[in-house]
C-alpha cells in the first residue's frame, strides 16, 4: 500500500445513492432538514447488514463463546472466530491469531502500553510519538514513561501538519524502545508515511505501533507490507458496532508479552499457586468478550469489501478535494492541516466564530460535524487555535452535502460578523 500518491478526483467511482439506502439513519431529518452527517472521524453510521446481522444473532444464535459444548455456544464461537478471520484478512495479517479483540483503539494502545511497555521499557529508555496524536496515543505513553523513568520524545510537525522526518531521524537511537504514531491524524487528516516510519524505527532496533483508527476505514491496509509490530483500530469508526475494536500484533511479539487484563479465558491451567497463560490472542481476551459486536464487525468488513477499499479511498479523496476547494474560497476561513497526503478530513477555523458556535449553527441546518479539540490538545496548541470545526467525509457523503456545508458556513459568518 503506498503511503503517498494523490488520487486524482474523478467522476464518482461509486453509486452513492444506492449506498445511502444501506444506511437507514441517512434518510432522517434533523431540525426539519435532511441529515448531513460529516462526523465520520468520530464515529460512523451503521448499514442495515450490520444492524440485521446483530439482530439475527441475538435473536436466534446467541450463546457464550469458547466454553460451552452445546449448539448455541459452538455456533457463537464459530461466528466469533470467523470474524477474527475476516479482520485478519482485511488487515493482511499472517494469521488470525495475530488479531486480539478489544473495546477499541484506546484499549488496544493501553494493552500495548501496559503489557509490552511494562515488560520492555525501562528507566532511561525512550518512546517516540508525534505532535499530532490523539490523547489515546499520548496519555498511555506519558503514564508509562513517568512510571518507568523513561523519556517521551515527540516528532514535530511543519505548518502543513506533516511530520518533519529529518527530526524523526534525530530522535531515533539505541535507547528507542517503541515508536507509536497514527497512520492518519484525526484532527488534521494528515496521512503519515507509515512504512518509512517503521523502516527507520526497525533500523534503530525499536518496535512500532501504528494507530489505525482513522486509516482502517478509508484505505487498503496491509500490515505485513507496513511491517508494523502493532496496528490498532476501532470497529465503530469502520461502520461496525461501538464497543469493539482490535489490536494486530506480530505473533513473535505478542508471544513475548504478558497478559494485560487477567481472569477467565486467558489461561491454560490455574492452581492456587500458579497460572499458565494461554497463547495469543486468548492471552489478551480475558472474560466474556463483546460477542455480538465482534460478529457485527465481521459483517461491517464484509460490507466494506463489497464496495472495495480502493474505490472507497478514491471516492473519499475526490470528496476531500471538492470540499477543500469549496472551503478554501470562503473569506475568513482557515484550513488547519494542509498536508500533501490527506484523508477525507477538513479541519477549519473561522475568524468570525468559535468552532462551538459554528457547529451549533450548522446543526440547525441538519449538518453534523465536530467542533472542539478532537482529543488532540497538543495538536491544537501547535496550530495556535483553541479548537477547530471538523468535517470528516465518508463514502456515503455526496458533493451536494459539501455544497450545503459551504453555504451554511457562509451563513454562520454572516450571523457573527
Amino acid at each position, binding site marked *: 500500500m503506498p503511503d503517498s500518491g494523490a488520487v486524482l478526483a474523478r467522476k464518482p467511482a461509486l453509486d452513492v445513492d444506492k449506498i445511502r439506502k444501506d444506511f437507514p439513519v441517512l434518510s432522517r431529518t434533523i431540525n426539519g432538514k435532511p441529515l448531513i452527517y460529516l462526523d465520520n472521524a468520530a464515529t460512523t453510521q451503521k448499514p442495515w447488514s450490520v444492524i440485521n446481522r446483530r439482530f439475527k444473532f441475538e435473536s436466534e444464535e446467541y450463546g457464550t463463546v469458547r466454553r460451552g459444548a452445546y449448539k448455541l455456544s459452538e455456533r457463537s464461537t464459530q461466528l466469533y472466530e470467523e470474524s477474527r478471520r475476516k479482520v485478519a484478512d482485511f488487515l493482511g495479517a499472517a494469521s488470525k491469531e495475530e488479531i486480539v479483540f478489544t473495546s477499541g483503539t484506546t484499549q488496544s494502545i493501553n494493552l500495548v502500553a501496559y503489557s509490552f511497555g511494562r515488560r520492555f521499557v525501562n528507566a532511561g529508555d525512550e518512546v517516540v510519538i508525534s505532535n499530532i496524536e490523539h490523547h489515546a496515543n499520548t496519555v498511555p505513553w506519558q503514564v508509562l514513561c513517568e512510571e518507568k523513568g523513561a523519556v517521551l520524545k515527540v516528532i514535530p510537525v511543519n505548518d502543513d501538519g506533516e511530520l518533519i522526518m529529518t527530526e524523526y531521524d534525530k530522535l531515533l537511537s539505541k535507547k528507542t524502545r517503541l515508536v507509536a504514531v497514527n497512520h492518519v491524524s484525526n484532527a488534521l487528516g494528515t496521512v503519515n508515511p507509515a512504512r518509512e516510519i517503521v523502516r527507520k524505527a526497525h533500523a534503530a532496533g525499536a518496535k512500532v505501533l501504528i494507530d489505525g483508527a482513522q486509516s482502517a476505514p478509508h484505505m487498503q491496509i496491509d500490515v505485513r507490507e507496513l511491517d508494523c509490530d502493532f496496528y490498532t483500530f476501532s470497529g465503530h469508526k469502520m461502520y461496525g458496532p461501538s464497543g469493539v475494536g482490535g489490536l494486530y500484533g506480530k505473533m513473535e511479539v505478542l508471544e513475548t508479552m504478558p497478559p494485560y487484563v487477567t481472569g477467565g479465558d486467558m489461561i491454560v491451567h490455574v492452581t492456587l499457586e500458579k497460572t499458565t497463560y494461554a497463547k495469543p490472542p486468548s492471552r489478551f481476551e480475558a472474560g466474556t468478550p463483546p460477542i455480538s459486536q465482534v460478529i457485527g464487525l465481521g459483517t461491517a468488513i464484509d460490507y466494506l469489501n463489497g464496495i472495495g477499499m480502493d474505490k472507497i479511498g478514491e471516492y473519499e479523496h475526490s470528496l476531500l478535494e471538492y470540499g477543500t476547494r469549496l472551503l478554501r474560497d470562503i473569506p475568513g476561513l482557515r484550513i488547519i492541516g494542509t498536508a500533501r497526503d490527506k484523508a477525507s478530513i477538513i479541519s477549519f477555523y473561522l475568524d468570525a466564530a468559535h468552532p*462551538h458556535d459554528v457547529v451549533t449553527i450548522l446543526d440547525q441546518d441538519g449538518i453534523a460535524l465536530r467542533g472542539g479539540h478532537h482529543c488532540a490538545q497538543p495538536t491544537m496548541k501547535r496550530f495556535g487555535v483553541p479548537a477547530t470545526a471538523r468535517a470528516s467525509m465518508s463514502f456515503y457523503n455526496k458533493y451536494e452535502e459539501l455544497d450545503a456545508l459551504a453555504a451554511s458556513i457562509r451563513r454562520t459568518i454572516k*450571523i457573527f460578523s
Partner: protein
Amino acid sequence: MSYSNELYQQVILDHNRKPRNFREMPNATHFCHGFNPLCGDDITVYLDVDKDNVIQDVSFTGSGCAISKASSSLMTVHLKGKKIEESKVIFDEFHKMVLGEFDPGKSENHLGKLTLFMGVREFPSRIKCASLSWHTMIGALEKKAEGITTE
C-alpha cells in the same frame, strides 16, 4: 411575559462582538480563573468589592465562544452595584434557568436581561458555555486560588 428559546439573539451577538467590561482590573479585591477543558473556553473574572459588600466594579478577560463571551459580558453589566448576597441569588437563578430547573416566566426573579439565555436549556452541550463566567465569579468571591474548571 414570554421568553424566546432562540440561542443566538441579537443582544447576545452584540455582546459577543463588543463585550462590555472586557479588561483586566489591577486593583481587584477578588479574581478567579475559569477554564472549560472540553472546549478551551478560558476566562478570568475580576471584582472590586467595597467594605459594605457592594460590587463596585466587575470585569473579565479571556477567550471563548459567543455564548460564553456574551454571558460574561452581560453578567458584568448586571452585577455592577449589586451586593454579594444578591449576586449569589442571581447566580442561583441563572444557573437553574439554563439547566431548565427554573422558569423566569413563571416565577419572580432578579434576572432582568439575563433571561436572554433561557434558550441555552435547549442546547445541553452549551450550558457550560453560558455558566462558566458565573461559576468563575462565585469562585472569585470564595477566593478559590486554584481556579474553576467545568470538569
